[in-house]
């Protein structure tokens, strides 16, 4: 039966083929490999792409192999959606997936929640360990052990998804099973491949939206300012309407500026704080995660506080007979 393999480093097609199929493979098997992997032809295989390793017993294409080809092509399409983001996706799979799962600011916001989460991870690991001991001492038969371990691994998988892995010491871009040393197999089964294709699509979109995050925030701010003004501008409320215009425009100008500047400050402070107080290494993704979270928090606070300041100054502007007047002492 054919198997799928996700390539994790740039490699030439020829070397990859030799590595997966071995030396001295027959001409027919070699051609079979080429047919199944026609999506990879062109010299260089980039990380994240799926390689189909054909069944060594047969040289004709089966229905099962056409399933693999379909998914391989889907994965390629998702990677091609944003070619520039492909390497980022592979390098920062954990971080990007965490943004999908938890949202950019929510993770680890409360220390107690974070510590509780880590305790749960430890509990699950200990349960796996206990289960293994019961198997060794004969307290559990093999089938029951495999069944119960599967349940615990699924639970652990959920607990360690994305950024949650950063706090546990089980870092890296490798799969959970590889990280835990539970299995050394590099090949994935059908269910895992289907999930991989779907996750890639979602991550590719998140990665694209991440770049536009600033503009989404800005669009929301502009929209909110417009709504406030519209609410005040109804017949019979001309004075409130005029005031709302300047207050809300001031809030928007202040919020955008404050968010931009304090977002940067927040990112720097968070990086420094993570390094000095939490002992997160300067190198690697931990520092990057701190920067992003700090940046988002700083941006939020800056936008809110400086927005208030802009609104305060905007409230001092009066429009009298078409002229704008700055009224320091209030209307």
């Amino acid at each position: 039966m054919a198997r799928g393999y996700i390539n994790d480093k740039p490699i030439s097609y020829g070397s990859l083929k030799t590595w997966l199929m071995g030396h001295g493979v027959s001409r027919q098997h070699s051609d079979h490999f080429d047919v199944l992997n026609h999506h990879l032809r062109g010299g260089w295989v980039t990380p994240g792409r799926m390689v189909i390793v054909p069944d060594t017993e047969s040289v004709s294409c089966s229905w099962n192999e056409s399933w693999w080809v379909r998914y391989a092509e889907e994965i390629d399409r998702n990677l091609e959606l944003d070619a520039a983001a492909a390497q980022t996706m592979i390098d920062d799979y954990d971080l990007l997936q965490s943004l999908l799962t938890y949202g950019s600011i929510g993770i680890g916001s409360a220390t107690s929640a974070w510590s509780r989460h880590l305790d749960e991870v430890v509990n699950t690991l200990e349960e796996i360990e206990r289960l293994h001991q019961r198997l060794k001492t004969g307290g559990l038969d093999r089938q029951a052990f495999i069944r119960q371990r599967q349940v615990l691994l699924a639970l652990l998988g959920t607990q360690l998804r994305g950024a949650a892995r950063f706090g546990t010491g089980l870092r890296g871009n490798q799969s959970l099973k590889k990280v835990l040393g539970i299995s050394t197999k590099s090949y994935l089964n059908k269910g895992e491949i289907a999930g991989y294709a779907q996750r890639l699509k979602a991550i590719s979109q998140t990665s694209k939206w991440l770049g536009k995050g600033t503009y989404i925030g800005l669009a929301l701010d502009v929209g909110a300012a417009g709504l406030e003004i519209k609410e005040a501008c109804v017949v019979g409320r001309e004075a409130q309407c005029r005031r709302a215009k300047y207050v809300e425009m001031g809030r928007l100008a202040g919020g955008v500026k404050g968010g931009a500047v304090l977002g940067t400050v927040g990112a720097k402070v968070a990086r420094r704080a993570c390094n000095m107080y939490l002992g997160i290494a300067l190198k690697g993704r931990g520092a990057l995660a701190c920067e992003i979270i700090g940046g988002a928090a700083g941006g939020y606070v800056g936008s809110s506080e400086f927005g208030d300041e802009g609104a305060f100054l905007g409230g001092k502007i009066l429009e009298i007979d078409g002229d704008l007047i700055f009224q320091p002492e209030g209307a």
Partner: protein
Amino acid sequence: MDFFLVYSIVLFVGMSVVLGLMLFAEYTKLDELESYFSENEEVRNNKRFWRRNQWIDRQYRMMLIFEYLADSKRHVKAGLVTEAELASIPLALKRWVLWPYYLAFIWAIATVVWSVWRRWCNIPI
């Protein structure tokens, strides 16, 4: 005009200047700066992650170099940057990296003061 209003105006104008300086440095000085770190693995990785060249990308790329310059001892000790790399950057360029951000820190503190002041004295918007 009361003192709070004057403080607010200075803060508001100052923030615009700080933002302008940051943008100027990020758009006109970053490429030159990165050329001094062409062999630095961490800078290269960071550039690969923030590669899209939008403002947020340039901001985070500049931030790493700022960290190297502002806290050089720790980074040299951690083996992330060499003294030779840091010494190769002209002083004027270093100032373009450091000062907009130092001013941003000062303005961030000033914003905290403004915020506390407004709440303490219950000043309406």
